[in-house]
C-alpha cells in the first residue's frame, strides 16, 4: 500500500446485465481528501458504477484498485470492511424494521459476554436520535418503522448511517434528492467535513450547483462511457451543466431558472 496511490482507481470497467450494456469501459480515480463528483444523464450508469465499487455487482471486466492494490469484492460486506461506505440510491433500508435497527444494521454494537451478547438498544436509540437530529430530522420515535417515514426522512437515515460509521471512502448516490432545504445544506456541510478529515468522497447528483459547491473534480458519464474528467478550475458551471445533460437540448423556461435547473 503506498500512501501516494489514489484511494480508488478503476480502469476500463465494463458491466453487462444479460444483453444490456450498462458500462462500456469507465475509468476513475478518487484521492484522499477529495470530493469527486460523478455526473451524468439519467441512465448513464452512475449507480451501476458505484454499486460495482460497493461490491454489489461483480464487474464483467476491468480493473479495480483500492489504495493501489487489486481487489475483488464478493459482497458488500467486503467493501465495508475495506472502508467503503455507501448510500445507495434505493437507500438499502428494511421498511418493516425500526429506524434504530436500520441505522445499526450489520454493525450492531453488542454488550455482555458470548453467548449472551446483546444489542445495547438504549445507546442505539440515543445515537440514532442524535445523529438524525444533527442532520436536521426530529425523529418522533426511533422505534418507528422506516416504512412509515417520509421519503426525505428515510434518506437522512441512510446518510446519517454512512457518515456515522466513518470509512476511508464515502459514496453518496444522489443523497439530497428527496431532502428539504435545511437537510440538503446539512449534507453538503457533512461532505465538506468528511473531506477535511482526509476521506475520499464520491458524490453523485443532478444538481450542478450542489456539485460545484463541494466538488474538487468532476467526472461526467454518458451512456455507459466517461465523457471526461475536469478539475474545478478547468470548467465553468454552465459548461458542466451542458455536459451533464449528455447532449440533450435544454428547455429554457423562465428567466428565473437562470439557465441552471
Amino acid at each position: 500500500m503506498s500512501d501516494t496511490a489514489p484511494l480508488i482507481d478503476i480502469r476500463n470497467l465494463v458491466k453487462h446485465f444479460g444483453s444490456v450494456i450498462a458500462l462500456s469501459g469507465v475509468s476513475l480515480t478518487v484521492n484522499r481528501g477529495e470530493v469527486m463528483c460523478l455526473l451524468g444523464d439519467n441512465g448513464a450508469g452512475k449507480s451501476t458504477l458505484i454499486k460495482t465499487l460497493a461490491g454489489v455487482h461483480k464487474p464483467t471486466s476491468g480493473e479495480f484498485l483500492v489504495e493501489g492494490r487489486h481487489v475483488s469484492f464478493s459482497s458488500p460486506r467486503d467493501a465495508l470492511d475495506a472502508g467503503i461506505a455507501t448510500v445507495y440510491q434505493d437507500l438499502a433500508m428494511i421498511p418493516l424494521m425500526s429506524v434504530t435497527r436500520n441505522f445499526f444494521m450489520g454493525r450492531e454494537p453488542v454488550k455482555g459476554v458470548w453467548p449472551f451478547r446483546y444489542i445495547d438498544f438504549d445507546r442505539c436509540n440515543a445515537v440514532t436520535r442524535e445523529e438524525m437530529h444533527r442532520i436536521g430530522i426530529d425523529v418522533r420515535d426511533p422505534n418507528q418503522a422506516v416504512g412509515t417515514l417520509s421519503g426525505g426522512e428515510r434518506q437522512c437515515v441512510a446518510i446519517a448511517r454512512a457518515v456515522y460509521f466513518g470509512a476511508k471512502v464515502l459514496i453518496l448516490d444522489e443523497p439530497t434528492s428527496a431532502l428539504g432545504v435545511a437537510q440538503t445544506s446539512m449534507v453538503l456541510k457533512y461532505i465538506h467535513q468528511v473531506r477535511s478529515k482526509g476521506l475520499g468522497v464520491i458524490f453523485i447528483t443532478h444538481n450542478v450547483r450542489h456539485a460545484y459547491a463541494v466538488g474538487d473534480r468532476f467526472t461526467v458519464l454518458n451512456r455507459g462511457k466517461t465523457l471526461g474528467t475536469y478539475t474545478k478550475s478547468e470548467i465553468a458551471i454552465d459548461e458542466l451543466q451542458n455536459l451533464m445533460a449528455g447532449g440533450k437540448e435544454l428547455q429554457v423556461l423562465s428567466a428565473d431558472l437562470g439557465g441552471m435547473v
Partner: protein
Amino acid sequence: MTDVSHPTAPAAPVPPGPAAKPARDERLREVSLLTRIMRRPELGALAGLVLVTLFFLSTADASMFTLAGLMNILAPAAQLGILAIAAALLMIGGEFDLSIGSMVAFAGLIFGAFLTLTGWPLLVAIAATFAVAAFLGGLNGQIVIRTKLPSFIVTLAFLFILRGLSLVGLKWATGGSTQMRGIGERAGEGIVREIFSGNALEGLFAWLAAHDVIARFPNGTPTVTGVPVSIVWFVLFAAAATWVLLRTRAGNWIFAAGGDANAARNSGVPVDRVKTGLFMLTACAAALVAVLTVLDAGSTDSRRGFQKEFEAIIAAVIGGCLLTGGYGSAIGAFFGAIIFGMVSIGLTYTRFDSDWFQVFLGAMLLLAVLFNNFIRRKVTGER
C-alpha cells in the same frame, strides 16, 4: 435520440432527433433467439420436462412412451394441471388458495347430491355446482380482502371446513357412508355428459386402430379409444389462461395486483375485484375437476382431492411462479403439472422398488428445477 452522436469531449448540446423507430442501440448486446426464449418464464419449465423425459426414456419400460402410456401420464397431469393453472393465476395475483383440494371433495359431494338427491338434469347440476363453488371462492376472497389477513390462513380454515362438510354431507346424503356411488347412472347420456366425461375424438381413434396405427388389445378393442376430455379441458384452459395473462387487461391487472398491491391500487387497478375474481376462478377450477372425476369414476368420497392444493402449488412453482406473487405463467404451470404427473406415474414404469418412490420423486423434482435453472442461466448469461 438514437441518432445523436456521443462525444467524449465537451460539445454543444445536439437537438434531439425525431422519435423514429430506433435502429440499433449501442447499449444493447446482440442476443440469440434461444436466450430470448429461455428468458420467458413461460418456457423455463420446458428444460425440466426434457430432462425428466430423457430420464424415463432411458430407465422406464417402453410401454410408457406408447400412445396409451402417454395418455396415461396426461390424464392425472390434466386434473392436477387444471388446478395448478388456476393456482398459478392466483399466485401471480399475490394470494394462495389452500382450500382447492377440499373444494374438489365438496364440489363432488354437492354435484353428486344435486344429481342423485334432487334429481336435477346434468346441465343444471353442473351449473349449480359451479355457482356454489364460485360463491365459496368469492367468500374466501372477500374475507381475505376485508380482514387483510393472509390468504394462507383464511383458505386454510376453509381447507378444514370444506373437508369436514364433505364428510358430514356424505354421511347425511348416503345415510352413513363416506362414499357416494351410482352418480354415473344418474347423469344419463347426452352431449353435456360427453363434454365432461369419456373421450374426445373417439371416431378418429377407432379409425386409426382399424388401420393398425394404434395398438389393439387381444380382444380387438384399441388400447386407446380417444383423448380423455380432461386432457382437452387442460389444454384449452392453459391456452385461455396464457392468453388472458399475456394479452388482456385482466392479465395486466393480475400481474400488477400480485407485484405490488399498493402500487397497483394507486395506479387505478381495482385490486380487490381482481383478487376476488381469481378466488372464484380457483374454486371453479376445483369444481371442474370434481365434475370431471365424479363423472369419470361414477362415485365420490370424502378424501377426493386430498392434498391437491399442495400438488397444485408445487406444479405452479416448478413452472416458475414466485410464491411472493407478481411473476409466473400459466403455461409454466402446464409444464409443471406434466412434469409432476410424469414423475409420479413414470416411476411405476420403472423397476425401482416402491419403497424408494418418495426418494425418487423428491430427487427428480429437485433435478428438474435445478436443471431448468442451470440451463436458463447458461443460456441467458445471468448470474
